């Protein structure tokens, strides 16, 4: 059930360069159904910025009525969010979208979680859920450089965690696919979220994998009505087949949508 709620800011921390983790309290966390769902945030009570900003839920604690969001402060909207302070009341629409269905892996099997940059946050809740089900979790996280890296310790607590950076300032030099290949990581299912080039590389390198990937797209309404965030499907006989990232996704079965 989607709701619009004024939630209170419990805490906000800059956990990496321009990356913020905010904990919110309210009724919404009880309605979250799966890791990978997101919320749509109005960053100002005034008319402008007009559009909401889609933000991933990284973790949630229904008993405490709390959830954590992680975002990168980049433009006007997210910079306003970065200025939130504990005690602020903020306008949040959610929970939105379909999260990760973890039925691809059973207890004792291996899940490979691959995250890139600000695509990492929703994978934390997923990793916790998988580990809780007795799935062996191994993670590969890719970042631009050391200052922008985060959550390595939290993933390490759940299983093996490898980090790659483009400049080699932390972890291994290169892309996440380099780490997977170099280390010969095996898996029963892959779960990925990150920039399109990363998802494309994973999709082409491991085309027959089982698993899910989560997409990011510029959104309008966030509830599936405005058709701003559509993508093509791989199986598209007449060219009109589509999925809406906000409401059909953002998580899709491996190979279902075209990563363009």
């Amino acid at each position: 059930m989607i709701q619009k709620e004024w939630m209170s800011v419990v805490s906000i921390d800059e956990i990496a360069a321009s990356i913020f983790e905010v904990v919110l309290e309210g009724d919404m966390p009880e309605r979250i159904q799966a890791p990978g769902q997101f919320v749509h945030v109005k960053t100002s009570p005034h008319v402008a910025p007009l559009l909401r900003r889609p933000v991933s839920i990284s973790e949630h604690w229904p008993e405490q009525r709390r959830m954590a969001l992680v975002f990168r402060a980049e433009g006007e909207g997210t910079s306003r969010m970065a200025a939130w302070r504990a005690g602020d009341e903020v306008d949040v629409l959610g929970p939105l979208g379909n999260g990760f269905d973890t039925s691809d892996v059973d207890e004792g099997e291996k899940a490979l979680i691959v995250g890139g940059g600000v695509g990492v946050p929703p994978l934390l809740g997923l990793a916790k859920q998988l580990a809780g089900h007795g799935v062996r979790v191994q993670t590969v996280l890719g970042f631009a450089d050391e200052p922008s890296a985060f959550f390595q310790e939290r993933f390490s607590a759940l299983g093996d965690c490898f980090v790659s950076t483009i400049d080699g300032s932390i972890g291994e030099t290169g892309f996440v696919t380099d780490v997977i290949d170099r280390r010969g990581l095996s898996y029963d299912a892959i779960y990925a979220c990150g920039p399109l080039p990363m998802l494309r590389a994973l999709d082409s390198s491991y085309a027959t994998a089982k698993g899910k990937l989560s997409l990011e797209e510029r959104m309008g309404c966030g509830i599936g009505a405005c058709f701003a965030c559509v993508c093509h499907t791989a199986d598209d006989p007449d060219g009109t087949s589509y999925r809406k990232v906000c409401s059909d996704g953002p998580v899709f079965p491996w190979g279902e949508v075209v990563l363009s």
Partner: protein
Amino acid sequence: MKLHVSLPGLEMKNPVMPASGCFGFGKEFAQLYDLNDLGAIAIKATTEEARFGNETPRVAETEAGMLNAIGLQNPGLKGVTEQELPWLQQLDTPILANVAGTKMEDYEAVAAGLSESGMVAALELNISCPNVKEGGITFGTDPKLAAELTKRVKHVSDVPVYVKLSPNVTDITEIAKAVEHAGADGLSLINTLSGMKIDPATRKPLLANEIGGLSGPAIKPVAIRMIYQVRQVTELPIIGMGGIMGMEDVLEFMIAGADAVAVGTANISNPFACPEIIQELTDWAGTEPAADWAGWKQGGVKA
């Protein structure tokens, strides 16, 4: 004061409807509130064949507004009449079906099909979409073409036909008069203003389609001016739209000359915009001494 509004084909409990293209076919919003609270529903444009629309990004935020270039994505006439309209019949809310096309024959086919379905209360002829490569807006910028299309669509429709006007014209009153003489039952205005946004860092347009339609509070003064001007030249009912965010905006449109209003972009930033505005209007009407909208609007805009 009674909020009820009676327009050709549209018996509305209140003057507020969501605008076409901002509400899909209603299903998403039905999860959030009772669609019977709405005065009417303008559903997403229907074309003869299914359309995927434009590539993404399809939206970009602007100062107090947004650009969109969705590209009339819809499941086509067959899809709309078989999958979308039957579900809407359970509502006690009239459906205004937006009709789009690239050739006059397309508009005729869609209008005839929707009219024959018996599931729509009225049609809204989309001669003002700035986001398709051909047709669409061309019919909305040439008074002769607009009139001919209106006449042809009227000929094949059993339900009232509203013509949705484009603001991307030199003189909107010329188009309004032309479609009135051609038999239009009502007007809706304004559609989006053609616009563009470029990222200085990359020098690339923010929309994949490069150009899109500007909507939201940024265009409200243009809408008010155009409704005011069109009201001077026609007695046709006007559904006013363009940046309505709250009750005060509705009142401004009604004073300018609208008989009902459509809320568009506000639904995107707040999916509860329509019921919130209707609640505000209901509270306001409770203390208004006028009997109805006609009484309240007496005198129109003061000199």
